[in-house]
């Protein structure tokens, strides 16, 4: 019954997201609509199996498919927009066995329950947001507030004001909103750090369970574009160019929860003092030629295997069915999770 949207929640989440993108095109992903695929392989670190008995950390090199994306649900590509970027990775573990890791460039999420997220998504409906006048700027100066910025320079319709008002009323939305206000636009999909947001349970061969969070860190380092003028599709162009010269590499880092860390709440950051372990390195070697196949491909944050499994995070549980719902709506491949449907 997974993914059947028994209580209608997945449909409501899906529809709420669509409200934020009026030009959304049916048959595409509701968010992270514009993407680009790449393939390569993952090499686990020697120490990874001390923490997880998952197949992808056993020692062998694993084939991987990755889809990078912009966070917007609009079908129009604006790589230069100040937006969340996504990196969905699929580990091919053998016949009909896969494990996914879905990460974005924000370290925390906006809601800790699905109902909260519905409220947040509804608050982000775009409204016409005129450029600030000299008077607005003067008032901001007097209030010691920063100059306002527009996330998407091409689009005067913006949901930021609604999101901000929502975060002012809901404390759990604040860390994510503050993180979103500090987003930068990367020079390359391969020059941003991506976070899995949720906590997972890593179990080693001795049965020792640790609560962990995962991130992809670019070996080339993080670099934002700053104020540089860039073409609207520069991230796509750059990735192809980069891979022609050699692999794009990412280190998979895992942070282990400390006592008192909230392991079911994706709105809470953990302190940087937590134990940090290198779990392996990803080498992306070429673009995925078949763009249609990449766009139909289903990723799901709950597609895991024994040794690295989901926590009880309610957002993570809701994402399972919401991603399945979305997959069916757009005729995707690879759902349901664990069903081997391809």
């Amino acid at each position, binding site marked *: 019954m997974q993914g059947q949207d028994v209580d209608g929640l997945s449909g409501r989440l899906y529809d709420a997201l669509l409200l934020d993108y009026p030009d959304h095109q049916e048959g595409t992903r509701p968010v992270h609509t514009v993407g680009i695929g790449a393939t390569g392989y993952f090499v686990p670190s020697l120490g990874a199996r001390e923490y997880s008995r998952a197949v992808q950390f056993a020692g062998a090199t694993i084939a991987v498919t990755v889809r990078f994306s912009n966070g917007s649900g609009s079908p129009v590509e604006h790589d230069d927009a100040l937006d969340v970027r996504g990196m969905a990775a699929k580990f091919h573990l053998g016949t009909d066995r896969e494990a996914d890791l879905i990460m974005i460039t924000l370290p925390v999420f906006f809601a800790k329950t699905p109902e909260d997220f519905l409220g947040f998504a509804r608050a982000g409906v775009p409204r016409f947001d005129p450029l600030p006048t000299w008077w607005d700027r003067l008032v901001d100066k007097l209030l010691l*507030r*920063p100059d306002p910025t527009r996330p998407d320079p091409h689009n005067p319709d913006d949901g930021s004001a609604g999101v901000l008002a929502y975060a002012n009323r809901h404390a759990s939305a604040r860390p994510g909103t503050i993180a979103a206000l500090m987003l930068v636009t990367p020079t390359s999909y391969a020059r941003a750090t991506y976070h899995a947001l949720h906590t997972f349970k890593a179990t080693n061969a001795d049965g020792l369970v640790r609560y962990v969070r995962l991130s992809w860190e670019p070996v080339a380092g993080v670099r934002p574009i700053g104020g540089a003028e860039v073409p609207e599709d520069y991230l796509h162009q750059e990735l192809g160019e980069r891979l022609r010269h050699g692999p794009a590499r990412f280190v998979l880092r895992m942070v282990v929860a400390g006592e*008192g*860390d909230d392991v079911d709440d994706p709105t809470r950051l953990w302190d940087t003092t937590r134990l940090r372990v290198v779990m392996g390195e990803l080498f992306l070697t070429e673009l995925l030629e078949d763009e249609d196949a990449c766009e139909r491909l289903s990723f799901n944050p709950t597609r895991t295997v024994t040794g690295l499994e989901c926590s009880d995070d309610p957002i993570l549980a809701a994402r399972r069915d919401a991603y399945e719902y979305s997959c069916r709506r757009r005729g995707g491949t690879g759902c349901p999770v664990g069903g081997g449907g391809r």
Partner: protein
Amino acid sequence: MSRLVAALSQLMERALVRYWKWRAPVPTPVWEWKTSLADNVQQQMNLIMPLADTTAVGRAKAVQMVAANIDELFTGLNNIGTVHSARFDLIGDNLCIITVYDGDHEVYIRDFISVFGSVFDAMIKVVADPPPSPCEDFPADFVKWVSTHEAFQVPGDLSLMFPGEQNLLNLSRDLILLLDDNPNVQIGRFSGYPALSVAQLRLAAGIEW
């Protein structure tokens, strides 16, 4: 002309800061004690002590004072046994002790007093607002004095810094007011080996402890 504009702009900013400190004051957050082991290793102490004499002569005295006591300092730090690193710096007109240590903050300061209290007594002779001395006789005063001279440590999750703020647009103003009260701030920290204690590292490396 641009320098005049910059000066006038700074003058206006100072006036606005004074106004907002009166209109909407922001208290410096006090961090609660945490029980996680990871929270109690590799803690930071950034002690910023303004010099009494900020001329080159006064600064030279501070350097000579530290240099003359280096054996006592290093032996004491070794004997405390929970110190990852300690630096003694002159930054601007301040004598600074910047350390990373394991365990409880107050215990750490009291360890300082017991292993090189006499160095601290020499040190506070060159600072502008010294606590009562000798510090061995006034440990509670000394602990409090150290706390008031530590750089404020900004948390990674900025939303935790001003929990009472009802409007996120005001966070930048809150930060400005906080910095006006706390000019010395630790903005970020990184460790190449987080969550590991001195004892664990020395044991793993086989260099005794």
